[in-house]
């Protein structure tokens, strides 16, 4: 567990930044890769080394940072949605409805998709929780953050090694 502590710390930071609107808008896809780099630096500091950093270790740290960021980020997102009964998806609903209207599919299919989304939006407005939304964000965050964390870990280890060589 101790060897994944840097990933947990950096992942927690990235998870928090995931739900802060300003940083979310400014840093886009950079939060998780930067957290992975931070995890590598933390690991080096905790071990008191400054030399070559194993690429595989960097990738694993990055991957775990992404996974922890996904778990923490999803938890905070669900928790804040539960308290505020508000979410980005509520604002995006109208836009998505307009978008779906332009797609050449039968009206029945369109209505089905819109009603599915409306169920999620109504559920969030009423209770602050939607199972479909919760599953969807956990799944999405796990996939996207693990990929970007892995990339961040690789780039971080490479840059660190290039700097130290």
């Amino acid at each position: 567990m101790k060897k994944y502590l840097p990933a947990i710390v950096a992942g927690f930071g990235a998870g928090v930044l995931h739900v802060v609107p300003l940083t979310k808008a400014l840093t886009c896809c950079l939060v998780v890769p930067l957290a992975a780099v931070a995890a590598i630096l933390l690991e080096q500091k905790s071990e008191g080394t400054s030399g070559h950093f194993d690429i595989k270790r960097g990738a694993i740290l990055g991957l775990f940072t992404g996974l922890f960021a996904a778990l923490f980020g999803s938890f905070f997102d669900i928790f804040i949605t539960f308290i505020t009964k508000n979410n980005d998806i509520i604002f995006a609903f109208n836009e998505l409805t307009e978008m779906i209207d332009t797609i050449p599919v039968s009206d029945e299919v369109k209505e089905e998709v819109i009603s599915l989304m409306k169920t999620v939006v109504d559920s969030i407005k009423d209770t602050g929780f939607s199972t479909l939304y919760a599953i969807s964000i956990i799944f999405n965050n796990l996939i996207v953050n693990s990929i970007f964390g892995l990339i961040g870990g690789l780039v971080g280890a490479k840059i660190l090694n290039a700097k130290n060589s």
Partner: protein
Amino acid sequence: MVKIYTYSPQNLFRFTKLKIKLNKKPKFFLRIIPTLIIFIWIIGFCWELILSLFPNSIYLLPFLKYNYSLVCHIETEKLFSIFGYNTLVCSRCVGIYFGSFFSSILIIARANRYISRKSFLLLSLPLLLDVTFTSLGIYGYSKIMALITGFLLGSAGFIYIHVEIFQLFKNRKAIS
């Protein structure tokens, strides 16, 4: 062909070399894994175009839209259009992903495999300058400019880190 990478750890006072000897080149199917992952990612953000071919895949659209909103601001006016269909990420991101895809194909074809750190930084500079200038309002956002600068960064970035990606799949022997 055997490649030897040499590193000199700074924490040791005596000169130490860590030679990582790569046993063999990655097999073809390993070389195409990153290309396939990037291709699937590209298919995902071109879903509006896919929808025109398979309309019933509309059920995936809200899910994918949220998925890409995690990695891109997806501002409507900055979205890139392919045959009149908007992508689910902005023009800059489209450039980055297409650039990575292009480089991954070059690597499969063994056309260009290595890039120095200086070249990588040089090719990243246009994107950084474009982001800075558009953010400061020195000139307006241009989708083409964003696409080109993104493409440069994506292609250079993938070539820069692909050795490390392949190392993950390969057996290595560390001789210190």
